[in-house]
């Protein structure tokens, strides 16, 4: 197959740090080239150089044998390079079609006024091709996360694309949607589009990838054909060391009931009844938008609920009071760390102590020395990679940010942990660290509810699995029944195929 793109000896230095060091990589026509590596390995920087968001310091970029001298976002677009970002890059207040054509709108003669009709037709055509049943005129804010991801892909395909870059496209998609996505990728391969694919979900790479390149610390480690490499080899190359087991949790006998949810009902979910026992990790599966996070938020007291009750260690919680919930030993680790979990402008120390601050300093005066010691002890215990407790959390990697959120709740001596998508967007090594931590918590007698869209993770970690579907608790799976098929069956049991959320944005 002919070479579509070649990046040669790319180097990029940011003040004080070498982000990329002599990285060469190429892309063939109609191939899916997987890029893999830990966070901060340089994958995103490399792709940003490709898309013109960054300028490289050295090295060259050529497309179909012709060297591109000065790359910028506009030029990259003209060259047919399209990015599908991990963090959704859509404007919620604009309609689907306006988003799809953002930056290259179709215009009427005279180049001033928009040609809305042909934009509508074209958008409809693209969405149809991708099998996405959404009206192009609807505002993006009304769409579910999954639907937004689809729109993002449609956006990339709206004009003639030669090279597509997927940056963790599946992190918010459910299995069936991933299947749809892979079908799209396969059909794109047939039209000679070359694709870079970045993901932390290793099993996906084997499903879709042709070749894989591993990056570590800004250097290229290896490029291999997918067929010639095993998952263990790959993990070793990524981490630079051997990681024996990803899922450490050994099933054990559960203790007394710590959390009891009884008939919890709101507009987003109906009649949820479940319990959590000491020492167990319970998975909560379901499609994105099934109401899992909404339920978790209501249990913790952030959102209100209509009826039902939440009991923790025999004590009934009042509605809508997260402070009491926290004091009683309940903790909640939200799905979106940056948006919901951390105060990014504040440092590690301040983020770690925030939830337990009233317990730590009952007389309301902060003892800085004690605070620093406490924070440092958790930094050490959880192995958070930061030089000091004073580093701003904004500058930590995803895995370390997640650990800070966990540390926050360890400090409160929480007994019940609700983890919402604990490993989304985290690299393999950090994932294993977080699993280890969950296991340890369970061993120490905590009860853990793990909300996840990652089925292997659910299957690998859970003692029991609850499955929600469209706001209803579709069922509970135990022991040997915990299989992909059974969970998916339950997850789809009440689905009506809505892509539009009810949330008023």
């Amino acid at each position, binding site marked *: 197959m002919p070479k579509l793109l070649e990046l040669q000896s790319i180097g990029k230095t940011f*003040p*004080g740090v070498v982000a990329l060091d002599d990285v060469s990589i190429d892309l063939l026509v109609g191939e899916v080239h997987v890029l893999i590596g830990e966070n901060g390995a340089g994958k995103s920087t490399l792709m940003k150089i490709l898309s013109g968001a960054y300028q490289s310091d050295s090295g060259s970029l050529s497309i179909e044998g012709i060297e591109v001298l000065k790359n910028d976002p506009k030029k990259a677009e003209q060259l047919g390079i399209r990015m599908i970002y991990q963090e959704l890059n859509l404007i919620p207040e604009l309609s689907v079609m306006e988003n799809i054509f953002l930056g290259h709108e179709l215009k009427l003669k005279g180049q001033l006024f928009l040609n809305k009709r042909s934009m509508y037709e074209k958008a409809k055509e693209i969405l149809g091709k991708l099998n996405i049943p959404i009206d192009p005129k609807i505002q993006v804010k009304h769409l579910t996360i999954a639907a937004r991801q689809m729109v993002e892909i449609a956006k990339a395909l709206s004009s003639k694309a030669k090279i597509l870059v997927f940056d963790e496209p599946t992190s918010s998609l459910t299995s069936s949607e991933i299947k749809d996505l892979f079908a799209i990728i396969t059909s794109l391969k047939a039209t000679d589009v070359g694709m870079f694919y970045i993901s932390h979900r290793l099993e996906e790479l084997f499903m879709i990838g042709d070749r894989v390149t591993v990056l570590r610390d800004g250097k290229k480690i290896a490029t291999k054909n997918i067929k010639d490499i095993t998952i263990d080899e790959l993990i070793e190359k990524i981490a630079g060391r051997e990681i024996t087991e990803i899922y450490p949790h050994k099933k054990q006998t559960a203790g007394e009931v710590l959390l009891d949810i009884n008939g919890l009902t709101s507009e987003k979910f109906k009649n949820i009844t479940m319990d959590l026992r000491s020492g167990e990790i319970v998975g909560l599966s379901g499609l994105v938008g099934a109401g899992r996070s909404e339920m978790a938020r209501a249990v913790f007291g952030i959102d209100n609920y209509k009826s039902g009750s939440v009991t923790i260690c025999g004590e009934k919680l009042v509605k809508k009071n997260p402070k009491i919930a926290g004091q009683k030993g309940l903790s909640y680790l939200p799905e979106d760390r940056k948006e919901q979990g951390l105060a990014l*402008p504040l440092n590690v120390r301040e983020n770690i102590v925030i939830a337990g601050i009233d317990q730590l300093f009952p007389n309301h005066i902060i003892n800085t020395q004690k605070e620093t010691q406490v924070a440092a002890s958790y930094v050490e215990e959880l192995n958070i990679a930061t030089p000091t407790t004073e580093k701003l959390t904004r500058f930590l990697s995803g895995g370390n940010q997640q650990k800070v959120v966990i540390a926050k709740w360890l400090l409160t001596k929480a007994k019940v942990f609700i983890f919402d998508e604990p490993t989304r967007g985290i690299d393999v090594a950090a994932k294993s660290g977080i699993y280890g931590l969950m296991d340890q918590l369970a061993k120490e007698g905590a009860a853990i509810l793990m909300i996840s869209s990652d089925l292997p993770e659910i299957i690998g970690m859970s003692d029991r699995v609850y499955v929600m579907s469209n706001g209803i608790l579709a069922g509970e799976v135990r022991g040997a029944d915990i299989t992909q098929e059974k969970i998916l069956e339950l997850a789809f049991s009440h689905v009506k195929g809505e892509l539009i959320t009810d949330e008023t944005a």
Partner: protein
Amino acid sequence: MDTMPRLHRILDIHTLKRGLYSSSIFIMLFLVFGVFTIYNRVAFDTNYLKAANISVIVNQASFLMVVGVAQAIALLTGDVNLSIGSVMAVTTVLFGRMLQQSSDIPLFIPIMLILFLGACIGFLNGILITKLKIPAFIASFATMYICRGFAWVFLGKTVIYRLDEGFRTISMGKVYTIGEFTITVPMLIALALILVVNFMLTRSTFGRKIYFVGSNVVAAQASGIPTDRVRITNQVISSFLAAFAGLLYVARLNACEPGMAIKTHFEAITVALLGGFVMTGGYGNVWGVVGGAIIMTAIQNGMNSIQLPSELQTLVMGLIIILTVFMNTFLLEKKMLVADKNIETKKAIISRGAQI
């Protein structure tokens, strides 16, 4: 990893950055003083930098510090408080009325009532913002109108003037004179207030919660912080301080007028923003307010001293504000960028640039 040595913490770049962000105002302060001193020396052969003049500037700035702190606290959670000036007006007008009605009640009773009233208005603001979910800008704009209107209604068509001399010491009293430098009661009040608020913000658990709510209100909720309560309390403190500032104001002027402090909300925001606070919340150090208040006063004082024509005064004020903000946001962060080992800083700075 060892426990953090103190020195390490102090030298850490991020701590440094947060500290310096508000201290660039002091660099600017030196510049402003320098220019006016030289100009005065050359053009009039007078000494601008004499202790007596500095004393006057700091004394005048004390009042601005109080309203600046009131605004800064509101800004910390991202809720601007436009009603500061009007709260001052309505509370002090009532205060004056009370004094007028009966001269024999002990002074502290009306003072307490007034401060309580200020806190109540703050509570109202807080409820509007958190429970009724009205944007702070509009909510406090509305209360600004309402309070100003009530100030007129209460005062009728009279002006209350010549207040109790004992009461006036809180603004006019002198404590001690070192050479030509006079330490006045307002200076001490402002200093005490700054120390208390600084302690509250940096050393109390409540202060930490304020910063957390300002940085990320959703995360604060998810950490078990009662965010609404924090924001309401913040508004209460802000308006309480406004009422307090009102007392200082009338004591200084020896009069209560319904039209007083008509632009104070603007001044307060300017002082706070110059001091390194941002409209989106979560940033800022109270000492920055001290710098902001002194710089604003020093500019006015300096312009008077060099006999700048009145039509040019807003121009000079504008230019100096731009220069100060430029120092705050651009020069300093650029230096940080070189020193900072992390590439993410650049992104962070870019995103800061878009802040209001």
